[in-house]
């Protein structure tokens, strides 16, 4: 029962973007289109899985005093390994996901899951936590991107859905649009949370 809870908590109850306000920088930067949001979400979930897995494996070996530099080392190495391997063996995938790699290294979501969860729990639970958080992060990005892409370009996943006569609200795909959208959605999520309590 606990395992299912660790998996589902990241999706809504502890959604990384809307509730915990983690990983906001990439959430602002790449939520201009749904396609980008899915790419970033998938790449971040993959790295999160890898880093949670490694850190839960070596947690007993790392002294508490120097845990943060150790986590950063592990995460940065893992991201670089993924980057180089993908670049060499899967060039088409690297072409579409490669631009998100530098944003993932500095994603505080990954470091915070290492610190708050993987360093205190076993491998199995850490993987579930990473999956749940990754899905929650992807879902949040897709929701933000849906609003921004429809308002800002009149499209959804690059398909025209609003009539051609619609004049795109350019502010929606510019950085201020990201703040507006995230602010409104955070408010909505908090309202829902209050009601549930």
């Amino acid at each position, binding site marked *: 029962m606990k395992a299912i809870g660790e998996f589902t908590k990241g999706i809504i109850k502890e959604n990384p973007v809307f509730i915990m306000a983690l990983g906001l920088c990439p959430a602002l*930067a*790449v*939520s*201009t*289109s749904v396609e*980008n949001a899915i790419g*970033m979400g998938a790449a971040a979930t993959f790295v999160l899985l890898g880093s949670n897995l490694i850190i839960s494996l070596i947690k007993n*070996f*790392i*002294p508490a*005093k*120097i845990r943060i*530099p*150790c986590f950063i*080392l*592990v995460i940065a*190495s893992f991201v*670089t*390994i993924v980057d*180089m*391997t993908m*670049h*060499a*063996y899967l*060039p088409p995938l690297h072409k579409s996901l490669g*631009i*998100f790699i*530098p944003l993932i290294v500095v994603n505080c979501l990954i470091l915070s899951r290492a610190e708050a969860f993987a360093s205190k729990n076993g491998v199995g639970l850490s993987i579930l936590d990473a999956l749940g958080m990754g899905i929650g992060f992807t879902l949040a990005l897709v929701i933000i991107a849906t609003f921004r892409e429809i308002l800002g370009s009149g499209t959804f996943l690059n398909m025209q859905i609003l009539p051609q006569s619609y004049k795109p609200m*350019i502010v929606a*795909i*510019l950085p201020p649009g990201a703040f507006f959208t995230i602010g409104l959605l955070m408010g909505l999520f908090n309202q829902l949370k209050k009601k549930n309590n």
Partner: protein
Amino acid sequence: MKNILKPTGILLIICVISSTILSVLYSRTKPIIEANNKAAIEAARKAVLPDAVKESFTAVDVNNIASGQPDFEPDSILFYKGYNQAGELVGFTYKSAGQGYSSSTKVVTMVGINLDLKIDKIKIIKQQETPGLGANCTSTDFTQHFSHKDPSTIKVDKDGGEIKSITGATITTRAVTNSIRDEFLTIKKDMMKQLDKGAE
């Protein structure tokens, strides 16, 4: 003393392990990545000058440094000549690089030039601009604006030119446009020489 030595030692071990893995992987993947990049550049050359045969591209090198060394690409290569199936010169391709919004990576464009010295097509081959804004420079919606334009006079609309800038990414648009123009102006003379040679 133990409080200092133990964490230091463990940090050292982790650093050594991760840098060993990274350096081994780097040396393994480097040749493959370079081969991939080379193939991508050859494909880009063909894409911006579709009339030319892929294998026909030959470098025009002022100093002749690269002659006989096919894998060597010095800066002295000005541009490439492309020939069609019949062996006739159909145009040139060159690379231009401009400083965009990313501090570390310049926006690199492959440009195809027809015999009338107008742009055939362009393709962005390297960039690290902001996803969703400047990164849109790779889409054909943007690159098609350059076709059939005179590269010696192109300008961004905000500077009084005819290239429509990407929404929210004037700096990227400017980097692409100005680098194409400036690079063209530097190599124009040598391109004309090649044209005269072909006419003889």
